């Protein structure tokens, strides 16, 4: 092995009499009510082409059933051990003509081809969300893996209005992220997009082409 590490650190420490910086890390947060947070979140999310539906805790699954029918999905991937499972399963019992519900409770490696080429949409819960910029926070779990919100062309996410933070700084501080970060933490704001051709925005690149948010009031 080379001495790269020792050499780099030695050079960085060689002549350092650099003046310490005085930092004030109290980052300001707006003074928003719950309603204002909801309004700001919806506005910001819609501005990046997210389809936001304001729903209730008891019957959001009916809205989901309507949406998947409307979008003529062939199938919907969900997490049978995840927090949304009961509601989703009850809706599929109640309504007819819904897309096939699919679950794969094994490592993605075992069904990667199907995931990449045959799944129309996936639904996941979210950890919380950020009102200021319109972003959902996901900490994927063994039940709801990372690829659910990434690979299928449509991602449907359930966001709880009670879990809206004003800012990203608030989310990190309130939820004490520094005490333990997950394998992967994600902020998601809208369907995937690119402006690499002539600075013209085009939606649907490598991540989902559509993002649907069910915001539980």
């Amino acid at each position, binding site marked *: 092995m080379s001495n790269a590490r020792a050499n780099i650190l030695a050079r960085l420490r060689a002549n350092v009499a650099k003046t310490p910086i005085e930092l004030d890390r109290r980052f300001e947060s707006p003074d928003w009510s719950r309603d204002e947070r909801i309004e700001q979140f919806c506005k910001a999310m819609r501005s990046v082409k997210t389809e936001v539906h304001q729903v209730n805790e008891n019957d959001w699954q009916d809205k989901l059933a309507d949406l998947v029918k409307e979008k003529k999905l062939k199938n919907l991937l969900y997490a049978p051990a995840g927090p949304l499972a009961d509601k989703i399963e009850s809706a599929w019992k109640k309504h007819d003509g819904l897309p096939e519900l699919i679950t794969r409770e094994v490592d993605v490696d075992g069904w990667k081809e199907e995931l990449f080429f045959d799944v129309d949409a996936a639904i996941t819960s979210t950890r919380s969300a950020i009102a200021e910029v319109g972003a959902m926070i996901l900490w994927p779990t063994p039940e709801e893996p990372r690829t659910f919100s990434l690979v299928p062309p449509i991602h449907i996410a359930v966001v709880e209005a009670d879990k809206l933070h004003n800012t990203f700084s608030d989310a990190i501080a309130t939820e004490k*992220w520094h005490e333990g970060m997950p394998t992967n933490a994600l902020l998601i704001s809208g369907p995937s997009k690119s402006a690499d051709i002539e600075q013209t925005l085009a939606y649907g690149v490598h991540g989902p082409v559509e993002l649907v948010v069910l915001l539980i009031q």
Partner: protein
Amino acid sequence: MHQTAEFHKRVKNALDNPQLRNNFRVAMDGLMEKRSNAFPDKKFLEELRITGSKLRANALVKQADLLEQLEANCTRNGIQVHWAETIDEANHIVLGIMDSHNATRMIKGKSMVSEEMELNHFLEAHGKSCIESDLGEYIIQLDHETPSHIIAPAIHKSKQEIAKLFKAKHPDIPYSEDIETLTRSARNILRSKFYEAEVGLSGVNFAVAETGTICLVENEGNGRMCTTAPPVHIAVTGIEKVLEKLEDVPPLLKLLTRSASGQHISTYFNMITSPRKPGEKDGPKEVHLVLLDNQRSKIYEDEELYDSLRCIRCGACMNHCPVYTKIGGHAYGSLIPGPIGSVIEPQKFGLDKFGILPTTSTLCGACGEVCPVKIPLPKLLHRLRYEQVRDDHTGATNGQGSRRSTKEAMIWKIWSWAHARPTVYRTGTRMASLFRGLLPKSMGPWTRVRSAPRIAPKSLHELAREEGFDNE
């Protein structure tokens, strides 16, 4: 001088290309407007810039300690950390990881450090395939080009040029100049590449020492794909990207996306703290972090120039640079173009190689004014101009003194001698006014694109005296 002649040739080619000039003009105007709209409140912007510059400066002051903390936390989390002093070392580390998995297929997210390493060439020479997955990077890879902008690599191309390129490389896809259709074609082509890749490579926007977390900013989802779908993820970063605390991230993220493209937040902000844990059903089983120095620790030695290491690579300085907008990114001949490139690249690769770059500026000050972390770019450009003509051999910058000319040094010596002696100065200006008609019309490079300066019949001092102003 060879580099100067080559540079002038590239500049001339760029200026003579109306399509290219139009592409840049339109794109830069758009980017400037987007940034301006994202910061409607100038007081807010100023406060945020101060916060951002302090957070970056703080991380640099503590850089050695933070790198050790980052390494310790990453290692504890299961991320394997590698150190590389040179590009060659970094390339061999990446190659070694691929070989240990008998891997031949790499899919790449956008990474300027991998461009700096010329990783694609290196790996291809060792029988590996590397596919760029960022749309802009994919386009220029198809055309065997280098990025012309750090966040919009294919900005020099029009949609017609891209449509023709796609048709030439993928004859089975119907020709289309529609941007959404072109984008969707790239999605379809690259989907199977993500699926097949054995190794995913990404850059790093911020590396958080406190938690051992790698942060990535992106819109396309290709960054998430590269760091999620293949069984191995390798992140490459310059050592200067480290931050002290997790809470330092939001203000810098806010500055980065708004300065770069006027977005309040990117579509994805991807924070990676470990490889797949037992029980988790996807994500790479191995995550590697390669810390590349390549002269950064040398830049760090200089009290003034080390400010350039604060850069968060938003590209705002080039978007607002009147020179960049005219000549485009490729004319610079360096990997990173524009004002920040003109400061960093000569320091990395030597003033003897890139000494022309610090002169590629009108010193109008726009770059320094928009920089989200308040890097004093005009001052640093000026400093490097000094570095390349000084001859006291005390500065640390590579290639110091390489553009010094004895003739020019002599002229300035006489100039400062004359300006320190009022009698000589007054006689000199009087003579210059008297014999102004003898001044040649052609004055070397200066008059190639400008008319020759004319000396006024009366000096400013004389005019002032006539108007009744006096020193007394």
